[in-house]
């Protein structure tokens, strides 16, 4: 029990928060056909995080979050410039910008002192759920002890804050977001400033990516943003189901991944421990594959031929 509190609980909470937040916001990316932006933002925030870290020399959340949001904003603008100046389609422009940002981040990571501190490449590539520990826990009573709670890993605080903000934003702007997601042209005709809404949504997604970045790593942020949303997209047409189901599925995948990676094998007496972030991403892929199979069985070939012909 003590071991669970000390070693597994922080990772479990982090994974649930990261999965839930990314799963909630991911639906808007997929519905707006901007899935690549999730890929791009989760890579492009790296130089911002490194610069924020290098300027202040501390791993506190504020500067890193600011740097990352700045980088995300810059990358979003840069994609537009490259599209225009380079006369490229969106996909290629996105690929060019985010690889450039990520490469710059990797070089900055090496030339600043960031590497000598605990912000290292492995954290970016694989995530570090396993390193989230709560050594101050002495028993169940610690859950109600403010002093012990204050010693929880600081990543949890950032994750929880972003989760609350994202949840509130989606709840408050439920209808406008639905319009933006399904029919931006109609939304514009109603006088909504679609561009600003999209920018705000992108900043929220960038914040979620930053918060999740440290615990699950850059590429697995993509898994959390895209996979739950795609799985629900395969199963439902309803907005409420899509958005809330995505959040629920993301949180469930996070919890299941962490439990299957360490505690469950340990409880069974097996001497293996797997990369928890990787396992979450793998499970997410498996769920998408299952949804694909279920959908193929549900949709009869005749109906597919008539109404849902595959895009060329």
């Amino acid at each position, binding site marked *: 029990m003590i071991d669970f509190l000390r070693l597994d609980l922080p990772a479990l909470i982090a994974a649930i928060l990261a999965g839930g937040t990314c799963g909630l916001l991911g639906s808007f990316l997929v519905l707006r*056909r901007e899935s690549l932006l999730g*890929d791009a933002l989760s890579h492009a925030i790296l130089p911002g995080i490194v610069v924020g870290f290098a300027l202040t020399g501390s791993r506190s959340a504020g500067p890193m979050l600011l740097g990352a949001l700045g980088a995300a904003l810059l990358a979003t603008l840069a994609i537009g410039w490259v599209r225009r*100046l380079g006369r490229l389609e969106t996909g290629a422009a996105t690929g060019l910008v985010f690889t450039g940002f990520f490469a710059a981040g990797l*070089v900055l990571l090496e030339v600043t002192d960031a590497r000598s501190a605990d912000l290292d490449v492995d954290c970016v590539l694989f995530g570090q759920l396993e390193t989230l520990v709560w050594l101050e826990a002495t028993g169940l009573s610690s859950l109600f002890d403010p002093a012990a709670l204050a010693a929880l890993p600081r990543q949890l605080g950032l994750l929880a804050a972003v989760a609350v903000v994202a949840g509130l934003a989606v709840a408050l702007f439920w209808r406008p977001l639905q319009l933006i997601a399904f029919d931006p042209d109609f939304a514009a005709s109603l006088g909504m400033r679609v561009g600003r809404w999209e920018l705000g949504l992108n900043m929220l997604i960038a914040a979620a990516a930053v918060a999740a970045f440290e615990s699950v790593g850059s590429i697995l942020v993509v*898994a959390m943003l895209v996979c739950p949303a*795609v799985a629900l997209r395969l199963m439902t047409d309803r907005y409420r189901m899509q958005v809330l189901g995505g959040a629920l599925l993301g949180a469930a995948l996070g919890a299941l991944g962490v439990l299957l990676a360490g505690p469950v094998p340990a409880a069974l007496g097996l001497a293996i421990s797997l990369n928890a972030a990787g396992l979450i991403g793998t499970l997410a892929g498996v769920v998408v594959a299952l949804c694909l199979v279920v959908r193929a069985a549900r949709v009869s070939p005749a109906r597919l031929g008539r109404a849902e012909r*595959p895009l060329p």
Partner: protein
Amino acid sequence: MIGHNTLIVLLGCAALGGASGVVGGFALLRGRALLADAIGHAALPGVVAASLIVAAFGGSARSLGPLLLGAALSGWLGLLALRALTASGRIRQDAAIGVVLSAFYALGTVGLSIAQAMPNAAQAGLSHFILGQAATLTESDAILAGALALGCIGVVAALFQPLRALCFDEAFARSQGLPVRLLDLVLLALLLAVCVAGLPAVGLLLVVALLIVPAAAARLVTQGLPALLALAGALGAAAGAAGALISTRFENIPTGAAVVLVGLVGFGAAVTWSRR
């Protein structure tokens, strides 16, 4: 002074960059360049599985051939998964790329954590496949990657006219009786081969840039396909060689990052030139 081994590695990276530029030119025209991102990430579980299998049979886990074969197989599986997703009629290509690259990469990291627990350290050097490290390539590795790249250029040269027809006017290609589906498959196979050949030097995260950046730069400043491909190839080769040189001099800097940044300087120059 450049040593013999370094020279071979530089030439291998230049050949690789050249092939990426040429294949990337076609892929960009056909709107397929981002598939390289999915292929690159999808290769990781194949690399890890291949190294585990080779180690289980007592072979050297560092020999490049089996690792690249594993990478190609799982990269191909990734492309099949991508097609299954888009064929559902519900998921667009961009979302499908996100699913494939993240899920396959995640599986690869789980595999890496298994390999790390192995007694004979089968995972040693595998992380180079993620970020790329030209400095650690042996002479025979560089020759293998370079030969694969030159082979791709050879295929492009042999199929130049049919591929041109495919990329500019698919309907025309069909009316000429060209096997469009087969040509499409050839283009995908070329993309896969270039990505796989690029893994050990440039790394799976950034290999997509090598396919997009030189081709995008060349398209801005040239007229006509032969000139585009020639310039893209030359730019790619220059970026590959310069990136490898930088990473052999400053061993902290991953080759992939250096190659991408050098290529982006070329892209910036092309943008400036095209706006004169």
